[in-house]
């Protein structure tokens, strides 16, 4: 299985987390309506969100490349990639462990301060706005919301050491989260309610996501420690 495939599956499995965290926004974007109206708005919202992910992924990859090629005495790309892979692997493992109910003491930084206030205000205004461009803009802003999954994947993108590969990493992750989020007006909304009502479902979804994240984290860690290829086929 290619690494992008694993990232896609991790995104797919973890999308219940997206549904729980951002599903409320997505449902509200449908404005209580279903059908083609809701679907169009959901598609635009997700297009905006995934575009932001891709952009951030390209930036992360470009940043690593930039660090390694900025000056003649810079560290070789491979060394930087290995260090980043270890850090990224540990981060992804932590996120995976949290999905599995472990390491609950590790807290995420809450969205506070000036930046958080501005972003939250912008999202609030966009959510209420009519028209088709509003969900697109909302998706773009939503993509910048602090999220552990996005952090983990950005760390993964940074290990690629290449803007295009970083973009591809985040595109694979975004594509994984796309199906559940894209149907938030219909099935996704139903799923969100079920997840809220049935702790068993939520636990099951958490375990599935945790397994994929742990697997991805182990692969990434191994890549750093054992010098495996950065992307493409693992075996």
């Amino acid at each position: 299985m290619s690494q992008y495939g694993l990232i896609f599956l991790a995104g797919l499995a973890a999308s219940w987390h997206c549904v729980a965290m951002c599903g409320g926004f997505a449902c509200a974007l449908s404005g209580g309506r279903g059908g083609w109206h809701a679907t169009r708005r959901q598609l635009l919202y997700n297009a905006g969100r995934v575009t932001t992910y891709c952009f951030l992924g390209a930036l992360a990859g470009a940043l690593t490349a930039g660090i390694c090629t900025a000056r003649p005495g810079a560290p070789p790309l491979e060394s930087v990639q290995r260090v980043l892979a270890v850090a990224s692997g540990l981060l992804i493992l932590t996120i995976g462990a949290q999905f599995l109910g472990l390491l609950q003491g590790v807290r995420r930084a809450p969205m506070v301060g000036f930046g958080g206030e501005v972003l939250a205000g912008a999202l609030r205004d966009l959510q209420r706005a009519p028209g088709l461009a509003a969900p697109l803009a909302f998706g773009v802003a939503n993509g910048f919301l602090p999220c552990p999954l996005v952090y983990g994947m950005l760390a993964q993108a940074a290990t690629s050491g290449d803007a295009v590969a970083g973009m591809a990493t985040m595109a694979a992750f975004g594509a994984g989260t796309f199906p559940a989020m894209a149907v938030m007006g219909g099935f996704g909304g139903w799923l969100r309610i079920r997840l809220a009502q049935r702790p068993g479902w939520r636990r099951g979804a958490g375990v599935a996501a945790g397994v994929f994240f742990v697997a991805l984290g182990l692969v990434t860690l191994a890549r750093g420690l054992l010098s495996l290829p950065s992307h493409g086929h693992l075996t």
Partner: protein
Amino acid sequence: MSSALCTHCALPLGRSRHDAQVAGAERGFCCYGCCLAFQVAHGESEEADAAWLLIRLGTGAFLSMNIMLFSLLLYSGGFDMAEGNPRPIVHAALFLLAAPTVLLLGWPFLREAWQDGARGRLGSAALIVLGVAAAFLASVLAMLTGGERVYFDTATMVLVLFTLGRYLEAAGRARAMRSIAPMLAPERERVTVLAADGGQTHRPVAEIRAGMRVLVRPGERIGVDGVVVEGTSHVGEAILTGESAPVPKHPGMSVLAGSLNHEGPLVIQTQGEGTASRWMSITAAVRDALGRRGHTQQLAERVAGAFVPAVLALAVATVVYWASRASPDEAMLHGLAVLVVACPCALGLAAPLATALGIGQLARRGILVRGGDVLENLGAVGAVAFDKTGTLTLGEPRIVGIACTAAMSSGGVQSPGLILALAAALEARSEHPLARGIVMEAERLGLPLFPALGLRVVPGHGVIGEVRGVPTAAGSAAWLVASGFAMPENVGMGMSRERVDDARTQPLDGSLAGNPPRPALTMSFAQLEAESGSLVYVGRGSRIVGVLALDDPLRPEAMAAVAGVRALGLEVLLLSGDRAVAAHRVAASVGIEWVESGMSPEAKQSLVAREGRRWAMVGDGLNDAPTLAAASVGIATLSATDLARESAALVLPDGGLALLPWTIQLARAVRRTMIGNLLWAFGYNAVALALAASGHLLPVFAAALMAGSSVVVVLNSLRLERDQEKWIPVFPQNRATNKESGAASELRCFDLR
């Protein structure tokens, strides 16, 4: 210098003024960023301006991110697998994405640059427009001529970053100005008026008349002066009095407009027109202060005015230089980087944001300043001079002792009470503080007020008339003697007292009414003089029959205020027109070592002028106006309504002397912040322009840096809001009670033989 204020952040409109039609009205903004933020905050009407702005930004960001990603794929060979040359098709697609982005996000900058141009000046918008237009048009040309490289990604991303940067800056400014927001348009605030039938209507403060019943819910600001008729609550009056502790309010008690209702609902009977409250005067003073530019701000604006043409010249020089050493594309990119990295906004924002924050923080505690330059000056003072009467003391002299000659007391008819009653009869109509002290004490003791005929006031000396058919006078010893009243021989020679009576318990007929006599006290006249601030002699018939000793109690917060100022490392001195004995006694009580006494207002003024140091002068604002005006910063402890009439640059609320050290600390912090902001703004521009011109900065990174540089100024200034909390003084609890304690000081009566 005064000017109109920005609709959004309340800073002066200044040179980069931006006018726009927002929320149904033509409004003035100090910059485009504020216009954006105002649209976000106030665009909840049908036009949905707020959302429209963010939609534009979000859509622009979506398009430009896609342009960047497609460009990335194109130039990294991502499209190479397609048959033939995909470049022209991808270039065209990029153009189709870039054109709407440039229109969406570039239009406001173009409009701003146009407005600036119509006023004959070059603003920062011109730099953006020029840079983006150059990149976009060069890319269109390359697309049409089959060139290798297009820069649609750079042009659009620069616009996104600029719009975002300006929006963030404006949001930060709006947050910084939150504390001052209630002061910007108090006449537009609405209050709930109760009709006779119990109905409620919401009307602006400007429409409120006396006698209306107004409902104030918990958490609401009281919009008009009035009297509580229903309900009990605690209200915060900090903005009017500086007192931070909430004050309890019950039916029958007065409430002031501008106070915050904390707990229960209150029904208030209004006592005047909504626009006639002290709150309105305060808000007008704050707005006036915000509109005044300080020296630093004026300097920064002059520099910013010359800055844009200089950047343009540097950009041209950069392009010319690099065109001879590299490809035309590279030369254009370096020139573009120079244009977009320059940040005149940070220069323009450095001083006014810090001073506005300071003015807002002070206004929240009832302290008013004339303008930002006052804070600049106060932050740099090296010494603080205090006036005595009315500043360190309450300015309300009270009787602390009465002495009467043996002839008056041993006659068995009348004694100290009569001396007081005689003096009160003469002084009843005088407004002199000493006269008020005498009359107040006579009223408090319930003494009869004798009619006085043929009164003649001799300013600076005393008053003479006829009381119960006998010539009677009250005033200085010298004047009484000159007026023909004989001084008892032993007065003034340090005579001893043998009997002490309390005038409060001794009736005029001399009987003790069951009060046992107190132990004898021996006190010399000199001691009496030393213990009291002022002596008023009373003459009757042909001789002086008694002396009233008055003293002006210290303000309860005086000692803490002086100690606080000294703790800041400032030199402290006392300037007084009073006798040396009185001045030194007050100075010793509050811990001041340097005393200049017996000074006329002119002498005080010339001392302040002669010393030539940066002095702040604290006075009561009434009789020391010339000294306040001569000082680097004149500080008055006076009712804020009088701000416009007197010469102080800063007004502490009545009784708010304890806030002086905090005010100085805040002024220092404002000054530090301002200097820090300016250093950052100048330093950033110098380094960033050097990097860009030398080809070390890509235009997109340059735009990101520029957007961040004004946010740094905003965030640095916002620290003021947090830091000042650390210095807030512990306010003397219940100031009214402390004032009363002065009146309760022991009243002693001495028998002058």
